[in-house]
């Protein structure tokens, strides 16, 4: 009975969203708003229970401080009760940075939110500088240095070189250089076409999933 109710509800919401294909309507608006609201609520709860509670409040000992009995002592208890240094105290810095991030909601001291933002940008940029360069530049370049002994290798090398030439704007695209750039455009077009084809396939798949739900799971017409 529960599954019949939940499936019917899900089916109504699915039809409500698909109804936009005909034209905008109140049912679609309702379904859209409901989806946004539920998503926001779900994300908030998820982030609290997966992030804030175990990593910040439990590790620091704030939940214990507030009277929770099924949680072990945290860093604050270790420091002030036992006089021991606990590396989980470092979460305090993360917590303070998190609070500073929220201060952008207070215009007078909103500037303080720039500090945690700078920390995030700096650390992520540093982290990615090496990994991105290694995985997406060096390894790819290395794999383009190939012998011209097969058609595939030839296509790969010509495509890479002409594609790079197209994005070289310090020299006017004329003569042989312009010709190479034009070849580069063709390669780019083929790439975009392949990518678009895959996108169409992906979107169709999502629709097939919903149609299978409507005709199979809900109505039981498809086995």
């Amino acid at each position, binding site marked *: 009975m529960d599954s019949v109710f939940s499936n019917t509800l899900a089916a109504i919401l699915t039809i409500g969203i698909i109804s936009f294909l005909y034209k905008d309507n109140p049912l679609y608006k309702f379904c859209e708003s409901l989806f946004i609201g539920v998503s926001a609520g779900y994300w908030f709860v998820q*982030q609290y229970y997966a992030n804030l509670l175990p990593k910040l409040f439990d590790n620091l000992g704030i939940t214990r401080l507030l009277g929770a009995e099924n949680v072990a002592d945290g860093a604050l208890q270790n420091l002030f009760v036992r006089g021991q240094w606990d590396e989980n105290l470092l979460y305090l810095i993360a917590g303070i940075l998190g609070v500073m991030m929220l201060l952008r909601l207070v215009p007078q001291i909103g500037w303080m939110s720039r500090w945690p933002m700078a920390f995030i940008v700096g650390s992520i940029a540093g982290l990615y500088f090496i990994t991105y360069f*290694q995985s997406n530049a060096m390894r790819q370049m290395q*794999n383009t240095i190939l012998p011209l002994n097969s058609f595939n290798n030839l296509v790969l090398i010509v495509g890479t070189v002409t594609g790079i030439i197209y994005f070289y704007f310090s020299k006017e695209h004329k003569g042989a250089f312009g010709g190479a750039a034009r070849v580069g455009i063709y390669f780019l077009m083929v790439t975009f076409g392949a990518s678009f084809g895959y996108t169409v396939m992906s979107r169709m798949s999502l629709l*097939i*999933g919903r149609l299978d739900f409507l*005709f*199979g799971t809900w109505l039981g017409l498809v086995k």
Partner: protein
Amino acid sequence: MEFFEKLMSIDRRVIFLFVGAALIVPLFLDIEQKIEITPEVQTLYDAFMELPPGSKVLMTFDYDPPSAPELQPQAITALRLCFDRNLKVIIIGLWPMGPMQANLALETIFIEKKYLDREPIYGVDYVNLGYSPGNELVIQRMGSSIPSTFPRDFRGTPIEEIPLMQGIVNFSNLDFILNLSAGYPGTVEWVQFAVDRFHATMGACNTAVQAPLVYPYVHTGQLTGLSGGMKGAAEFEVLTGFTGKGTKFMLSQSFAHIIVVLFIIIGNIAYFVTRGREKEKIG
């Protein structure tokens, strides 16, 4: 001529109707479509087959329900392959809904007849460590210590009490990683951190949208096999000898592609014919 002019101003809802019919009708048909196996999916399948029984496979569920039509069949096939070959499965998710998708896939598998008598044992044959926030930083931290990144499993059991997790410290204790990804964080991040930084061996199952972005990683050997979209799911199913939703849905997919290609051709013909007429008028 008027026919082509009408075609140029055809209501988009007519096209939706055709595409919808092309997707729905095949769901009711019992036609078998031949699925060609691509080298990328074959490599992924071979990677599983080369693992000796008892090998530890990390499966990362980095997707949520909207991408399930493409990725859930691949997840079910991969899990079934692992259980059939007695490979030990460790499940995690960098997306909040990922571990729940894994549970749904497990439920689908365990109601099958052959698993009713010998259902894999939780904690021994497989474990779900749940979701951990932090995106790529989770992967980075797993490279140092998996137990400190996932101190408890999905059910709240401390990791040291789970038999399957005994002796697993970092990626060097895992034999293979399979990433099921629908975007960020996903295959790109796993390649950058787990593969290139910690030298893990990894294959991937992606949505079709993401597949073109990660194909270069297969060519360089950073990925050991790739299964992209519903077509990849169907190929993976064919290789494992199981007909699931990937194979079933490919018929709808093919019908819809034919309709889309036909509309592109008709639209182009109509465009060039009407353009010629406009030129004549101007001339």
